[in-house]
Structure formats: structure tokens, C-alpha cells
């Protein structure tokens, strides 16, 4: 039975579902203690339901959602790989979950050990000197990295560096983060190869440039072949290089941002290191830095001395704190488990198979779809539904039809430089059989788009709802339930 009600609409006055120990201490006269004007007089519409009401309600909601465990999820740039279950069990251990962040380090050596070792492991994978685990997500990692760039230039009394360069294919968070930290954003175009236009870069490099932000492989899934040249150019003008590690899943064990000349690199634990996305978070976006930038890392840094882990706050050049405590610890624990389970060869194989899978799909679709930069890609590639769009079937239509076929659609309309873009990232955890059936589905859609385009305009038909009116939602926003 279809039950569309919100939890509030299931509320029955007086019904309860909670279990608390008795209040076994003397009652305080709250009115007298605080004074009546401070106490709640406004009605509080929190639902009154039983435990079984709650269980059924949210179980039913979960059925209207689609996770990686439900099926193939080739969402480009998001690395929706399988999330190993052992990692969940370990993160949920009382010894991690029930730890308070401000406990005396004597009593939290286990947590500090995990943080310390993750710093080392990620530094090795990124080719960096040290890593801070504080940023809660990629965007916060970017902000932290940019603050470090700022602090670095300031510490050298170099106040004229106000510009951050980003390619036009970059993730939108790059320019947004730069703006938050107070930099001017300069965008450079991609060349016909889909890579950074070296001449355009050369033309804007001067002593006002603070740094360059780059994803490598970029959002088209292509490796920036000229990266060494680029890093030399940027360094020669006194700027720093920031590595957006959203696409790190392509190159683990094959190449390292540090060796490419990057000074700062973030990595998304919720992408490359298999921690679940949680329907939009929590994630984690640690950043690694080169030797010269270590003094600017946020406080505290976990240090080890005589076998004892402690939190070092005494770092005069540090940018300070960008998040409470030490980052999304329980996400870090999951990634820690992932690295230990995989081992060095396992991580390299993960990247190898991720790249193999992406190229396999690309090759099997290149006759029916336009692929703007069609050559060997890394872990993802971008196709363009322009041929289909001529018949009136857009990337959006194709995406909605994939839903009816049981797949989560790829990322659409990104990067902005490709028309009718569909960005496909299969990840390494998918079997050849899964890839083949997805390819079959995409080919069927291409044929249908050519022969009977109208039949693709009304998907999805099998989802809990049909296409939703986004214009209505944005014109007169209804953001909460009212009685």
C-alpha cells in the first residue's frame, strides 16, 4: 500500500515510543530556577508515535531510495564503489563510537594511533610530507588548502598574490572555495585535447598568482600529460599547486600528486577509500602538504614520542582550526580499515581495474554516442548525447530511462564544457557481467532514441514518483511541513 504520509501525519496525541531510566534524583522546580519567560510556551510539533510506527515509517522510506548495494551506480566524479561491511562493524565498536574528543590523550591512545597512522598512509599514497585529517569533505579540504596557500604567501610578506587559477572543466567547488578564502578566481580554457591550454596559462602567470587548482585526471577523465611542465611554470612564477583529489581513484599506486609537483592535495575518503556516502554525507576530505607547508597545517597535529601519541597545538604558523576537533573520525576509521584490507598491491589493482572498466564501457558505446575527447581515458569518461538530443532525447531523458532499467544514472550536464554531458564512472568493484548489461541498456536507449524518441520522454515510470516539478519547488519554496 502506498503510504505518502510524513511522520508528522502519523502522530497520535499521547502516543510514545521512548524508553528512559527513571529520574532518580530530586526534582528541580524549573519555573522557579529559570523564570517562566525563558521556558517554552510555543507548542512543539514533534511527532507522537510508537517505536514500531517509527521503524515502519523509515523502513518504507528506505525502500524509496537507491544505494550502491541496490545496484550499479556509475555516477561520474563520485566514485560509487562498494562499501565493505567489515568497515562498518569496526567503526561502530564502542571503543571508537563512544569516545569523547576532549578526553585526556592517555585515555584515547587507540584513536590517536588511527589518526597518526592514517596521516602516514595517506601521505605515502599522495606523495606528501604530512596530512591533516580535519576537513569534513572535499570542499572543506579545498578551503583548508587555500588557506594554507594564503598563509604561506603571507608568511613571506608576499601580499600581492590574490589570484587562483582554475580550469573551466574544474569542479564548481574549486572556484567557490577560492572565493570563500578571498581569492580572485581566474578561469583558463581547455584546449582541443580537453587538457589545460598551456599558452593560455602562460599568458596569465605573473607575480599576482597565488596558486593553481587542478584535478588530475581531470573531470573529462583525461590525465594532464603536461603536468610537470605546468607545475614548473606555476612554481617559476612563485605560485603553489593544489591537487583536487576527487579523481584519485584513477592513479593509486601508479602515480602520486606529490611527484607531479603538487604542493597540496586533498583526497575524498568517501570516494577513493570506500567509505559510504550516507545519502550526502558525512564524508571526509583530508589534505596532504609538501615539506615546506607542514608548519601551516591546522592544529592539532598528532605526534608520536616514545611510543606515546599526543596532540600538538603549539604550532605558531598554523592556520588554526577549520573544523571542531580532528575531523570525521568514524569515516577515517573506515578508510583506515579499507587501506589495511587492500594492502599496497590491492590499491594499485583497484585503480587498474577502475581504468579498465571505464575504457571498456567507452569502447562499447563509442559507435552510438558522441564521445568528445575519445581516447584512452582514466577511471571515467564523458559522453555527449548530442546525437540523441537532435531527436529530442536529452541527457536528462536518458538518465530517467536508466532509472526504469534499474540503474542509477551517470552524472549529467557536467562538466559544463561538454554539451548534453553524461559522465560515467563504473569503479573497480563492478563485474564484467554488470558492465555488459549496463552497456546493453545504454545501446538499447540509443536505438530507441533514433527510432522512437517520443517513447523516452516520460520516464521514469517504475520509480515511486514520476518526474518532479522543480520549477514549482523553487518558485514558492515549501521547506517544512505545516499542520
Amino acid at each position, binding site marked *: 500500500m502506498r503510504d505518502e504520509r510524513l511522520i508528522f501525519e502519523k502522530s497520535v496525541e499521547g502516543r510514545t515510543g521512548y524508553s528512559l531510566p527513571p529520574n532518580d534524583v530530586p526534582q528541580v522546580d524549573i519555573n522557579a530556577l529559570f523564570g517562566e519567560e*525563558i521556558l517554552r510556551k510555543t507548542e512543539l510539533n514533534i511527532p507522537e508515535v510508537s517505536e514500531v510506527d*517509527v521503524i515502519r515509517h523509515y523502513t518504507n522510506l528506505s525502500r524509496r531510495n537507491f544505494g550502491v548495494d541496490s545496484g550499479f551506480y556509475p555516477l561520474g566524479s563520485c566514485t560509487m564503489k562498494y562499501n565493505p561491511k567489515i568497515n562498518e562493524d569496526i567503526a561502530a565498536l564502542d571503543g*571508537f*563510537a563512544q569516545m569523547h574528543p576532549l578526553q585526556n590523550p592517555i585515555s584515547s*591512545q587507540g584513536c590517536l594511533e588511527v589518526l597518526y597512522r592514517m596521516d602516514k598512509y595517506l601521505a605515502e599514497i599522495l606523495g606528501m610530507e604530512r596530512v591533516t585529517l580535519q576537513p569534513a569533505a572535499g570542499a572543506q579540504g579545498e578551503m583548508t588548502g587555500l588557506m594554507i596557500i594564503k598563509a604561506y604567501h603571507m608568511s613571506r610578506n608576499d601580499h600581492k598574490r590574490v589570484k587562483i587559477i582554475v580550469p573551466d572543466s574544474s569542479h564548481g567547488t574549486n572556484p567557490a572555495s577560492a572565493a570563500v578564502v578571498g581569492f580572485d578566481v581566474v578561469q583558463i580554457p581547455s584546449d582541443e585535447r580537453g587538457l589545460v591550454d598551456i599558452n593560455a596559462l602562460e599568458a596569465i602567470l605573473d607575480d599576482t598568482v597565488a596558486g593553481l587548482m587542478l584535478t588530475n585526471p581531470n573531470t573529462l577523465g583525461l590525465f594532464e600529460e603536461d603536468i610537470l611542465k605546468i607545475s614548473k611554470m606555476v612554481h617559476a612564477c612563485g605560485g603553489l599547486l593544489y591537487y583536487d583529489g576527487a579523481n584519485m581513484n584513477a592513479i593509486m599506486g601508479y602515480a602520486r600528486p606529490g611527484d607531479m609537483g603538487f604542493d597540496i592535495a586533498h583526497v575524498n575518503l568517501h570516494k577513493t577509500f570506500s567509505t559510504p556516502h550516507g*545519502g550526502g554525507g558525512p564524508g571526509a576530505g583530508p589534505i596532504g602538504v609538501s615539506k615546506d607547508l607542514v608548519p601551516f597545517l591546522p592544529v592539532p597535529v598528532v605526534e608520536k614520542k616514545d611510543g606515546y601519541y599526543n596532540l600538538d597545538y603549539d604550532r605558531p604558523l598554523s592556520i588554526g582550526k*577549520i573544523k571542531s576537533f580532528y575531523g570525521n*573520525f568514524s569515516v577515517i576509521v573506515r578508510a583506515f580499515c579499507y587501506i589495511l584490507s587492500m594492502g599496497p598491491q590491492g590499491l594499485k589493482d583497484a585503480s587498474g581495474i577502475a581504468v579498465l572498466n571505464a575504457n571498456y564501457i567507452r569502447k562499447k558505446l563509442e559507435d552510438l554516442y558522441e564521445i568528445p575527447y575519445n581516447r584512452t581515458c582514466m577511471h571515467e569518461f564523458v559522453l555527449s548525447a548530442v546525437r540523441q538530443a537532435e531527436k529530442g532525447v536529452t541527457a536528462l531523458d536518458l538518465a530517467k530511462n536508466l532509472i526504469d532499467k534499474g540503474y542509477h544514472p551517470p552524472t549529467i550536464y557536467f562538466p559544463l564544457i561538454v554539451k548534453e554531458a553524461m559522465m560515467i564512472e563504473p569503479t573497480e568493484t563492478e563485474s564484467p557481467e554488470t558492465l555488459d548489461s549496463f552497456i546493453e541498456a545504454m545501446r538499447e536507449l540509443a536505438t530507441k532514441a533514433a527510432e522512437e524518441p517520443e517513447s523516452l520522454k516520460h520516464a521514469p515510470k517504475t520509480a515511486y514518483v514520476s518526474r518532479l516539478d522543480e520549477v514549482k519547488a523553487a518558485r514558492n519554496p515549501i*521547506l517544512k511541513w505545516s499542520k
Partner: protein
Amino acid sequence: MLKTIGAQSIDELFSSIPQELRLNRELELPGPLSEHELRKHVKDIVKDNFDASWNLCFLGAGVYDHIIPSAIKHLVFRQEFYTAYTPYQAEMSQGILQAMFEFQTMITELTGMDAANASLYDGASAVYEAVLLACRHNERKEVLVARSVNPEYRKVLTSVFKYSDIEIKEIDYIMPDKGAKSGTVDMDMLKELISDKTAAVVVQSPNFFGIVEDIKAVSEKAKEVDALLIAVCDPISLGVFESPGKLGADIAVGEAQPLGNPMNFGGPLLGYFAVKKPYIRRMPGRIVGETTDHDGRRGFVLTLQAREQHIRREKATSNICTNQALCALTATIYLSIMGRKGLLDVATQCINKSNYAYQSLLKTGNVAKVFDAPFFREFVVKPAVHPEKLNEELLHDSIIGGYDLSKEYPELEGCWLVAVTEKRSKDEIDFLVNKVDSIIKGGI
């Protein structure tokens, strides 16, 4: 597969990476470990942690040890929720979208605001985003922040705005022994500093010392100069206290970890963000809105997205891209299970039990009073032994002691911030009091 691609080996697929950039050695990492080995390895690490399952936790200071209903993990760890991505494809994400809409509703109910977003990273990030919103809204650059706001939040504010043109000024609290209002915002100093340059005033209630502030009085002051009032409120306390919206706040933010989320050594936490109507379109982060589908049925979508980074890039409202959906879902389920009555019960027990602990500690004669204003769940006292020493000793008795305030407030040298939630029984509180008393009498 390689044949289809036309390559000889997987290595060949990496030929676009220049030879000199290849890592021609294995990464120096341990592993691989099988599940069994991993579990054993981690158990060995975890044994060095004194966690709150076998230690009595009296530590708060922004993260709290509340009772977590069992039902939560059974729902939150349904794979359809936790292995999903941000709900970009609304039709196959109605579950999390509806849950976020319910979360937004609950937050507006608690805070008395007109709208809330689907959460931010933590209380600290919610505070700096609120400051950013205020400064953009009234095109002013000066922000007054009470020193009784959580020091973690103030430190984050300081670092985030260090290189911007936004200036943060701090307002003191009334010092100990300065009357009934000691521990609350110093209104005289506020009156002195506030001006038509002030973009916003940030006040926290219950504040870092556990003391309930007079939000209404601060908000009236802010209104006089058209500054926004940003109230940082604990959601559990709003079960018993009047909502900040009703008391005049323009923006309500805070840490919602206490709503069913484990302490997790400080992360993930759960920032909430709620505003009055004029600021809705300036809210950062993910926002879920109600709409209808093609067939006229109710459905939910991410909305007001045009201002976000993937479209607006450097002109975006904020760089924040994700929320803490799973933690917000946890909070939603927590509030559903507790219900209005349960939340009131938790809040009341926090008041009763913390007051009992406070009175009992004072009665020993070895612990001194510091502030006079009434508190919620957490209080400041000054034991005759320094908190640092005291906490070390208490650990031998499996007690995680309170927070040493001298770390952030040098003028409160020797002061101890003790949190007592509904989780603590009378026996456990008595145990703490006896141990504190005997440690002090032992003359350490």
C-alpha cells in the same frame, strides 16, 4: 575486456602518465589483511581507548553522552540510506529526501524559525556560515561574538575569516563573583561595542558554561542597530526552553550531535542551520523542498540549488557541497522515537541530574561555586585540586572527568566544566562525588 579496448595490458591504459611520473615501486603500506586479521588488529588498537561504554562520562563541552535508542542503528544502517549518494536523482531518492524534509521541519519546530537546511558539517561550520550570511545580507563587516560561545567555534571563526575583510570582536561574560548574572553575556560591553557597523551578534544558550542566556535582551540590542542575532542553541535544551525564534533570533544554528548521534571522537557531528523568512534564499548547503510529480502526487526535490557551486562557481553562496545526511537522518529518527514527551523528559532529567551533581559536589566543602546563573546539563565548579590532576586520578576509577576550563579561559584557572546527562543515575553521580571528595582529601 582488454581485447575490446585494443590494449595489451592494464598498464598500457596508463600510458598517458609520463614515464618519469610513474611510481616504480610498491606503496609502503601494510596489508593486505583478511577480515579476521583486520578485526584482531583493530581490537588491539581499541583496547587503549577508555570509552563511555565502560567509563562514566562527565565530559561535555560541545559533545554529549546521551542515551541512544536501539532502533536508530537498525534504520540508519539500511543500505538504501547509507550507501546512497546525494539525492540528485530525485525519483530514486524519495526516501532520503522525505527524511531530510522531516528533519528540516523538526529543526524549525525546535528553533521557531521559518526554514532550515538539510544540515551542515558541525556547529562550528554552521556558525561561520551564519556570520557569512549576515555580512552579505546587511553589507556590514563587523561581528560581535560572545566569549561564552564554544571556543572551538570561535577558533574556527577566527581562522576562516583571518584573511577576509570580516572582523570578529569578542564580548566578555560577567566574571565570577559579579552577581546573579555572572557567567552570562556582559550587556554593558555589548552596548559599548555594538554600532551601525555591526553585521551580527553571536550568542550561545545554554552557553559554553552550561548557563542559559537572555537571548531576548541581546536580540533587542541587535535590533536597535539592524544587526542580525545569531543564536547558537542546543537542540535538547529546546525541549524545555522557549525557541530562539520566538525570542528574536534571526538565525539559529548549533550542534545537533546530542540528537541520537554517537560522540565518535568528535566526528562526524551535525550542524543545523535555520533562518527567518527574509534569509531563506541565502541559506547555504542542501535544502529539500516539497513539490508534485507529473501525476500530481506529493514529492520532494533538492531546491534553491541555482546558487550552489556547481552552477554558480565562484559566485556561490558557500562552497559547502555536502551535508551530513546520515547524521541528520539519525537526529530525525531520534526525535521521532523520543517524541515531544520524551524530549521534554530528557531535557528535564538533564536539569535535575546536573543540579543534583552540582549541589552534591558543593556539599563536600572541597568544591567551590564559580557562577551564579542557572544552568542546563553542564556547570562550572572549582575543585580544591586542579582539574587536570583530578581527571587523571578519576580515570583510575573509570570516570571520564569534566573539562579543564583553564585551557581556553586563563582567568578561570582551576575551574572544571562538568556535564551530567539523563544517562547518569543517582548512584553514578554519588560515585563521582565521593571519588572527587576522597581524591581531594587524599591531598594530591
